[in-house]
């Protein structure tokens, strides 16, 4: 016969002497083999010992599934020791996915009816911990019986077991209802606690149950009151508080019962106030109760005084030395800051202090509390947070700073400075989608352009590793490089910089290993743009031609196109690379089409505002005749925004009548075809190519298109008027008329001067409603003063791309 298997403690001792993992594994394997043989011998005496050893080895991470059936045998044994280990083994080794666990059901059923309460307890515990849905269904009746027993030891366990049954098989909830009738009349705290848990579970799962149990509110209030008022009870005392566990559970149940119900909320109002004011706050246990109380007050229909009391408790929590308390306070305040904003605002300085803990909750709260009055002070603290916080939170913080700055910036200068601060100190954490937003902001702060580009230039001199910073800087340098050279800067001492120095920096970005493909794209385009602002055109041509053979397909494509701009399309270059207009931000928040993952080049920048169409002759005789009739043209009155001359209806009638037509149908030139990038800003919408509507006597008018976000039948056209002559065109007025089936709305233009030599454009938004989806046609009338004389011209616009009206 085999020697007796070694005892559990001896095995533990032995295994702990192993000096290496390999040694331990060897010992374990040896012992497992011995245990297996012992199991095979069906040895009842030592089964318990062997399973216990197996459980130890299982905890070390070794497989123990061959002991599962042995656990079942132990459970079936009559020895209490066997049952204890058997049930423990079942809870550790068996899980409900395996069929073998169902073999337990009968044993558990028997043990639930055992004459010894500790055996019943084992069964209840095991069922309540890991019982599967099938087991629960089979044994629910037994549990329900035990829920009604007068034995409090069993009753409390049955209550929690019932909770588990309900979680597994919600349909069985009803059967436990009768047994709950007098659960709360119990004196035994264990039963009270578990009963409250059970009732809570039922209320959470069923609105009917919730309504039913609302009548318990007075009783719950009474129990809670007794706990608070009663004298010292050694059995349940924790640091001077009587049964905090029960208090917390009752408060939680009250929360559920009081929510949305005026009467219940009123009934609990006093006790909540009492708990809130009388609970000892020096230790965690008291604060645990206060915390639960605050949660309840905020959730039910409490009177405002009580709510303020709750928020003040949270405010006091923020001053607590214990960071755990501060943590729950911040979490709770975050939940209430929207609904009780003013009350939370009163604690702003305390919250801001918590920023020093570098807690991200404090950051979120701070952002929620920022407003026009406190923005300067708050931003200082938030920027400190940004500098010091965990990298995990920097992106969110940066985005939050940008948002807050955009909403509440006290001045444009402050706004730009704040953006700069973030870009230079946390630049690599700034989200990619912030870059277009920032560019838009900068563009729209026209008076700050010189200052901005100067600061960004200086930032790049220091550091070109932070991609978002480099991208924004490159873009600005391309756009406002001329301002950099001009030495005009009102906000600070203007720097002296030469064209070559600027190009050096941009070329440096292009070459650097640190630059992502996207960033390189920005840099190349910026360099290209400078060809119309700088005189070092040859240098720029050289750079561009080099990249015509770049391995990076995106860069190569751009370079090739830009090369073409220098050669075949040089006459368009100036117009194409012009200053960006002020951009209108749409409801869709503009550039959400930009998706950048892992720095892969989703081409994000294409500053081509408009693409001129190559005029081609057309043979569309019928259309011409239709238009000539003029009868179907409807005059339009532009929307009046004071300062601009509004055209009265009378003048527009001039538009009706015969016109000489030059019809051009636009073929998208290769420039547009070749560009695979998605449009960046709102002035080039997804897919609708821009067009030239008019080009005569030095005046060129281009149309760019967008779809209205709110109405698919509305095309939003932005006209861009530019002037290549040497004299300005002043008092410029653009008017338009469309056929009867359309409706037209003209918004006010950006100015009424078209500066000479393409130094700027007038933009104006025209909205066309086209419910019948007819082919869009337009007659335009232009009036302006040029070189001392007044000019007027009429034209047909027929080369609308089909996407603009279909």
């Amino acid at each position, binding site marked *: 016969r085999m020697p007796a298997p070694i005892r559990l403690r001896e095995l533990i001792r032995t295994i702990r002497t192993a000096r290496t993992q390999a040694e331990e594994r060897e010992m374990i394997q040896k012992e497992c083999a011995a245990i297996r043989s012992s199991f095979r011998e069906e040895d009842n005496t030592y089964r318990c010992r062997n399973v216990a050893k197996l459980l130890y080895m299982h905890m070390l991470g070794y497989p123990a599934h061959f002991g599962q059936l042995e656990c079942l045998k132990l459970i079936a044994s009559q020895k*209490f020791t066997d049952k204890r280990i058997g049930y423990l083994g079942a809870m550790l080794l068996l899980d409900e996915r395996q069929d073998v666990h169902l073999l337990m059901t009968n044993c558990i059923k028997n043990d639930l009816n055992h004459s010894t309460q500790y055996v019943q307890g084992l069964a209840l515990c095991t069922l309540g911990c890991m019982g599967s849905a099938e087991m629960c269904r089979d044994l629910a009746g037994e549990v329900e019986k035990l829920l009604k027993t007068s034995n409090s030891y069993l009753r409390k366990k049955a209550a929690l077991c019932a909770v588990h049954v309900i979680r597994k098989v919600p349909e069985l909830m009803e059967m436990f209802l009768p047994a709950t009738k007098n659960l709360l009349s119990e004196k035994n705290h264990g039963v009270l606690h578990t009963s409250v848990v059970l009732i809570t579970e039922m209320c959470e799962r069923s609105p009917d149950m919730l309504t039913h149990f609302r009548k318990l509110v007075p009783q719950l209030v009474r129990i809670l009151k007794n706990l608070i008022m009663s004298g010292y009870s050694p059995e349940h005392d924790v640091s001077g508080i009587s049964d905090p566990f029960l208090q917390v559970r009752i408060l*939680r149940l009250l929360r559920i019962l009081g929510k949305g119900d005026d009467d219940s909320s009123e009934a609990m109002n006093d006790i909540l106030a009492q708990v809130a004011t009388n609970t000892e706050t020096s230790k965690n246990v008291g604060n645990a109760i206060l915390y639960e109380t605050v949660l309840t007050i905020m959730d039910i229909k409490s009177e405002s005084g009580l709510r303020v009391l709750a928020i003040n408790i949270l405010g006091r929590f923020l001053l607590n030395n214990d960071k755990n308390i501060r943590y729950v306070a911040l979490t709770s305040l975050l939940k209430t800051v929207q609904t009780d904003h003013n009350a939370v605002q009163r604690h702003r300085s305390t919250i801001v202090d918590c920023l020093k803990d570098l807690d991200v909750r404090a950051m979120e709260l701070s952002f929620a509390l920022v407003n026009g009055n406190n923005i300067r002070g708050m931003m200082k603290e938030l920027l400190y947070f940004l500098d010091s916080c965990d990298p995990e939170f920097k992106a969110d913080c940066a985005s939050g700073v940008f948002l807050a700055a955009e909403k509440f910036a006290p001045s444009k200068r402050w706004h730009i400075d704040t953006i700069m601060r973030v870009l230079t100190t946390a630049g690599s954490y700034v989200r990619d989608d912030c870059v277009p937003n920032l560019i838009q902001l900068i563009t729209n702060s026209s008076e700050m352009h010189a200052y901005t580009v100067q600061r960004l230039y200086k930032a790049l001199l220091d550091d070109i590793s932070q991609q978002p910073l480099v991208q924004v800087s490159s873009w600005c340098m391309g756009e406002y490089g001329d301002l950099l050279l001009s030495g005009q800067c009102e906000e600070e001492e203007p720097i002296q910089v030469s064209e070559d120095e600027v190009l050096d920096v941009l070329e440096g970005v292009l070459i650097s290993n640190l630059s992502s493909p996207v960033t390189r794209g920005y840099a190349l385009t910026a360099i290209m743009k400078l060809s119309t602002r700088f005189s070092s055109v040859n240098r720029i041509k050289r750079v561009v031609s080099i990249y015509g053979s770049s391995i990076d397909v995106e860069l190569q494509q751009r370079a090739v196109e830009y090369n073409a701009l220098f050669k075949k399309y040089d006459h368009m270059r100036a117009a194409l690379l012009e200053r960006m207009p002020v951009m209108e931000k749409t409801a869709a928040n503009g550039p959400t089409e930009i998706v950048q993952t892992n720095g892969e080049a989703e081409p994000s920048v294409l500053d081509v505002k408009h693409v001129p169409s190559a005029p081609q002759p057309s043979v569309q005789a019928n259309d011409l005749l239709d238009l000539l009739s003029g009868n179907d043209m409807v005059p339009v009155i532009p929307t009046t925004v004071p300062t601009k001359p509004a055209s009265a209806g009378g003048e527009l009638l001039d538009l009706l009548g015969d016109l000489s037509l030059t019809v051009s149908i636009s073929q998208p030139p290769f420039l547009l075809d070749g560009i695979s990038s998605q449009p960046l800003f709102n002035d080039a919408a997804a897919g609708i190519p821009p067009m030239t509507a008019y080009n005569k006597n030095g005046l060129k008018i281009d149309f760019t298109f967008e779809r209205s976000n709110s109405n698919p039948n509305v095309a939003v056209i932005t006209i861009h008027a530019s002037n290549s002559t040497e004299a300005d065109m002043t008092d410029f007025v653009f008017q338009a008329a469309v056929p009867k089936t359309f409706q037209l709305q003209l918004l006010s233009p950006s100015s009424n001067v078209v500066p000479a030599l393409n130094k700027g454009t007038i933009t104006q938004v025209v909205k066309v409603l086209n419910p019948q989806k007819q082919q869009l046609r337009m007659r335009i009338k232009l009036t302006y003063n040029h070189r001392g004389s007044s000019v007027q011209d009429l034209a047909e616009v027929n080369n609308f791309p089909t996407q603009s009206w279909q």
Partner: protein
Amino acid sequence: MQFMLLFSRQGKLRLQKWYVPLSDKEKKKITRELVQTVLARKPKMCSFLEWRDLKIVYKRYASLYFCCAIEDQDNELITLEIIHRYVELLDKYFGSVCELDIIFNFEKAYFILDEFLLGGEAQETSKKNVLKAIEQADLLQEVRLGGGLFFLGFNSFH
């Protein structure tokens, strides 16, 4: 509570109580990840952290970390009290409990836990009652049930 883990500062598991059904593989993965996360925490950090969709409450007692995973609506501060109560129970039972006690008597640690919590909730809020139940149950280990030691001699005659 969804689960409770006890582990040493070297990351060795000393007790694992699961109140939700998970495969062995999943349990191992969760344990590994959580142990790593908690051990990486600096002393001045608070006892709570958000992990997956759960709240983790942990506290170190000497060389052992007690780590509980609770749900969103559970009270973190009272969970700290639950952990503390469990430690007090162990302390009373073993007399100045240390990690070695839990290593060599892990099954007892489980038995005590199972008298204190059931299905992840406290079943008994009186320290005295929990200890009394354990005491009584321990006594039962000597006795044969159903027949009683008392009658054994008589039965074996036949």
